[in-house]
């Protein structure tokens, strides 16, 4: 087929000829799952009254709910080997990603590299990695509470009062410390993060995580500075990793997808420490 495929006996990812992830096969089922980078434009307020604040360090306030697409055809390069298979995606000159699947691992790794975020159009941007799937999750999704309990979320809803959301997008964003997930009666998709991020499910089957922000106006909450971090005179480049776990939502199978998520989360958040020692004057046998 013209698809590009990487994976192993537990999880397999297929990319179409446009360079986007389109399906994931795991637990004997193939689900439509695509991943893309989009961005929200940051709102610019006059900061006089509470409702007219700019998006900034203390608040996420997009100018509009619609997202902008970052690329229509990322360039692909594929590397295969016995230990790992990788797809290098170049979405544009400031967004790229490496998707990799290691041998005998149950998850796929999405290592994203975002920045410097261009602001020559005078607009602040808030970059999101979005996974859209055909999993019929309705408006329900799950976000973690400091890496432990998963809290059930329902879009445009609060459990303890009748909410009227004036900020539809921001009102549906939640703090994701380690994991965001959704499921239907057959399949479950979870994304593990390597750091705390904002996240939500803005549509059925869809999960998104905010990976980087660059804003040009202070939000008048006290820091008196726009969230516009730079390095070497340009906008900061951020690099991080998302881990995608897809599987059956059947809780009777073993190991359950939940269990795979937990074990992966523990290994990725309490990773092995690497220490390097120069061995210039010690031969291998002496070292042994």
């Amino acid at each position, binding site marked *: 087929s013209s698809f590009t495929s990487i994976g192993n006996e537990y999880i397999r990812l297929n990319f179409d000829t446009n360079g986007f992830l389109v399906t994931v096969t795991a637990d004997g089922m193939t689900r439509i799952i695509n991943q893309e980078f989009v961005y929200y434009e940051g709102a610019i307020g006059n900061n006089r009254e509470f409702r007219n604040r700019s998006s900034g360090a203390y608040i996420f306030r997009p100018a509009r709910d619609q997202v902008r697409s970052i690329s229509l055809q990322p360039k692909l390069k594929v*590397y295969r080997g016995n230990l790992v298979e990788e797809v*290098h995606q170049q979405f544009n000159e400031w967004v790229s990603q490496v998707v990799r699947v290691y041998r005998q691992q149950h998850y796929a790794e999405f290592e994203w590299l975002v920045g410097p975020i261009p602001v020559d159009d005078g607009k602040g941007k808030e970059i999101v990695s979005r996974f859209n799937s055909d999993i019929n999750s309705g408006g329900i999704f799950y976000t973690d509470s400091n890496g432990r309990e998963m809290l059930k979320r329902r879009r445009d809803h609060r459990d303890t009062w009748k909410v009227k959301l004036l900020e539809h997008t921001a009102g549906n964003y939640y703090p994701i410390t380690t994991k965001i997930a959704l499921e239907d009666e057959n399949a479950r998709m979870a994304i593990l993060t390597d750091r705390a991020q904002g996240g939500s499910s803005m549509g059925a089957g869809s999960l998104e995580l905010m990976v980087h922000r660059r804003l040009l106006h202070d939000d008048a909450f006290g820091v008196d500075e726009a969230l516009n971090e730079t390095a070497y005179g340009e906008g900061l480049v951020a690099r991080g990793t998302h881990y995608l776990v897809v599987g059956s939502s059947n809780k009777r199978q073993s190991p359950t997808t939940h269990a795979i998520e937990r074990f992966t989360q523990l290994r990725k958040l309490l990773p092995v420490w690497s220490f390097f020692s120069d061995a210039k004057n010690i031969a291998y046998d002496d070292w042994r």
Partner: protein
Amino acid sequence: DPHLSFMREMMGVMQHHDAVTGTEKQAVAADYARHLEVAIRACATNTKEVLNQLTVDTAVPASVTESGARERRWTTGPKKEYAFKFETCTLLNISSCAVPEQADKFILTLYNPLARTVSEFVRVPVPDVNYEVKDFDDVTMETQFLPVPTPVQDLNFRKSSALYELVFLANSLPPLGYKSFYITKTNGNRMKPVADPVNE
């Protein structure tokens, strides 16, 4: 102790909501990063002390220092003592680390902080594709080399001579324990990784 206390104090400062969420001023964020960097570097001495107190079967009997503390050193019998510098690389996440980029032979010690055995794929940034990895049992590990993705934006920000990442599986890392691997540059003429053709 002074190093660990400094690290504890820095981590104490990092509990501030600004440090946790990044809502502080830019200069303050840079200062937080600077303090953490100093604290991590200071604790490298502790790491070195701890990891150099590996004792091997042929260890010279532990000498009792004047303070009465049992001091054990990394010894391989009477002839030589080795005290390694165990460098932590804070830029490994952007594929940059001085020792593997410059040394022809180096030791990678992996510490497993979990209370159970894990096997992890390790990525080491290297300038070339001819390296051999051996564990202490004289077993040569299976390796794979992948190009460090160097997209446009990376060129300005990553000051590193590493063009590839050496990948191997560090298996059976003991719980709350460590395992070392001896990595040597070889004169082999291994094929550089080539991208598969992709249907566009």
